[in-house]
């Protein structure tokens, strides 16, 4: 969008001043500032509350609020140790969360790599290799992004289950399911980026006799690193935080952190005090990834959702 502003020669003399004025105007509107502060607080306080509640000793969880416990000086880090290493659940021999934490890693890392590699290959083909049906296929894959994955769950489980190839309930089953569901977004996002590589670079390589394989490894991958980073973060957060795919395609040996937490959260029993520390533990790694790589995450969001 490049709508030229109507020219008013005598008054656009000092653009710097206008900018400063405007900044001031934004800040000095007390309503706007107040509203912004309230929103920022509402979006932060719940998470802080979760952390503080994690530190409330179990026997005070039902009767004392976290701010009272804080004033009394009774906060303890013991809950974290209990849910990670002792037990997490209704009975004292319920398995601790450490196993689920490791499961989360085992589920997530491969399912970040697989769709990235396959998506990059397809994205390069759709962006730079003209072939019949290319446009149709790309639009079709793009449209699949919107199809609710619920539509595929039951038959796909049959395909991967004991009547099919028999990998449901194990890590490979979860990997395959996650990889499939990630493909539409991966192809679309990477295509958007790869299509913007200047055509001179690709054409020059082609004229020099480079094959698609050579261009893929020597040009596309090095130039797409920012897009790769964006997609990797997306996929990481999506898989790490997923419950549905893991619940359907996983089993008792593969359940990630979200599964036992979701089960116990609806319980409201005597062990309810274990839920906040568990939820906080499940958030630590994604929050670290998110804050350290936020730039790429935002870039990926913008690439994925601003069309034209």
């Amino acid at each position, binding site marked *: 969008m490049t709508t030229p502003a109507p020219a*008013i020669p005598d008054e656009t003399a000092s653009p710097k001043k206008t900018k400063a004025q405007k900044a001031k105007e934004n800040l000095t509107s007390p309503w706007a500032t107040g509203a912004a502060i309230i929103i920022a607080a509402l979006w932060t306080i719940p998470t802080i509350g979760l952390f503080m509640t994690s530190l409330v000793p179990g026997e005070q969880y039902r009767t004392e609020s976290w701010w009272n416990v804080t004033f009394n000086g009774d906060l303890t880090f013991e809950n974290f140790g209990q849910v990670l290493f002792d037990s997490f659940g209704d009975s004292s021999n319920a398995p601790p969360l450490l196993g689920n934490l490791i499961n989360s890693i085992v589920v997530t890392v*491969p399912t970040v790599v697989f769709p990235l590699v396959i998506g990059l290959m397809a994205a390069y083909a759709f962006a730079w290799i003209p072939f019949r049906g290319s446009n149709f296929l790309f639009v079709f894959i793009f449209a699949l992004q919107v199809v609710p994955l619920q539509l595929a769950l039951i038959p796909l489980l049959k395909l991967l289950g004991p009547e099919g190839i028999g990998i449901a309930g194990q890590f490979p089953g979860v990997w395959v399911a996650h990889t499939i569901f990630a493909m539409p977004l991966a192809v679309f996002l990477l295509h958007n980026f790869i299509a913007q590589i200047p055509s001179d670079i690709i054409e020059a390589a082609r004229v020099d006799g480079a094959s698609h*394989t050579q261009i893929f490894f020597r040009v596309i991958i090095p130039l797409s690193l920012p897009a790769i980073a964006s997609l990797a973060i997306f996929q990481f957060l999506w898989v790490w*935080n997923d419950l549905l795919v893991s619940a359907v395609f996983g089993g008792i040996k593969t359940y990630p952190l*979200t599964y036992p937490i979701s089960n116990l959260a609806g319980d409201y029993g005597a062990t309810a005090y274990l839920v906040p520390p568990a939820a906080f533990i499940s958030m630590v790694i994604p929050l670290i990834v998110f804050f350290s790589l936020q730039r790429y995450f935002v870039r990926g969001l*913008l690439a994925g959702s601003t069309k034209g």
Partner: protein
Amino acid sequence: MAGFHGGRLPLPQSGLDAEFWSTQGSNLTLAAVAIIAFIAVVALVMFGADLVRGKARDKVQLVVLITPVLVLLGVGLVYPALDTVWLSFTEIVKEPDPVTGINTESVNFVGLANYTYAFTDPTMLRTILNTLVWIVMVPLLSTAVGLAYAVFIDRAKGEKALKSLVFMPMAISFVGASVIWGSIMYDFNETGEQTGMLNAFLGTLGIDPINFLAAEPWNTLFLIVILAWIQTGFAMVIISAAIKGVPPEINEAASLDGANAWERFWHITIPSIRGTLVVVMTTITIATLKVYDIVRTLTQGRYNTDVVANKMYVLGFVEQREPLGAALAVILFVFVIPIVVYNVRSLQKVKETR
């Protein structure tokens, strides 16, 4: 109870014995091996395709590049989706064989019976209506708050940090967010001190505590707030980028013409970012349709809070009523068809202008 400070018993650490570590170790090894093997196979096939000489080379390499994605999507998404559509028109009858006594399954075509049931049974109908409330409210709430916040903090001091605060819930799982709201904000005690932050706050105002998750019909709205809390950051980041794309000259000119901030917002900012607002709303609508984690974690559909995505899971995987679950999945899909059409059209427009 183990783990309480003070009365800690020397429990045998049930989970964390040698067997635990050997299982976890082999799981981690499995993941590492899978990744290395996958990359090795891809590289081998790619370089293998590079050994082809002559005209066929380009074609072979094209096939290598796009086959994986087409197979995965064809087998993993397109075929299952079609199968679900077929399943939704059937019923599965399980009865013992009169001779052998072994249970046999027969699949009968029943036409629209599952759909008729979905749209006449009161619980199912309630589930569909709840879902409609979700897909109207979540995009509206998130976009409105995201837009307001983006405008308020535009060019303010510390804009980046202020954005991070609202954006942060994007990194939290729906399960985690449900715990945050269910156990921290909405917590309700029938007697004694209110430990939930909202009820404690209401208490200071002299208002009786509310059992947020059970208070029909408003409880659906309280669940909706959780998803809106997550999605607002997304809306805000996209909208903020769009606002920065509005040429500042227009605002300056309008301001010189005497337009105040409010008028400039309605007559310049909103029209300039209309396209972005549509994209944000549709994206959030799609995300909303698929969400089942929040309902499953907090109410399991009780107190009339069920939504299609959760009901579909329960029918398909808990109650063994797959055809009915399939019908709900198809209904879910029908809801998004207009969005698919709209998105495909705008993509084609972009492609034409390229």
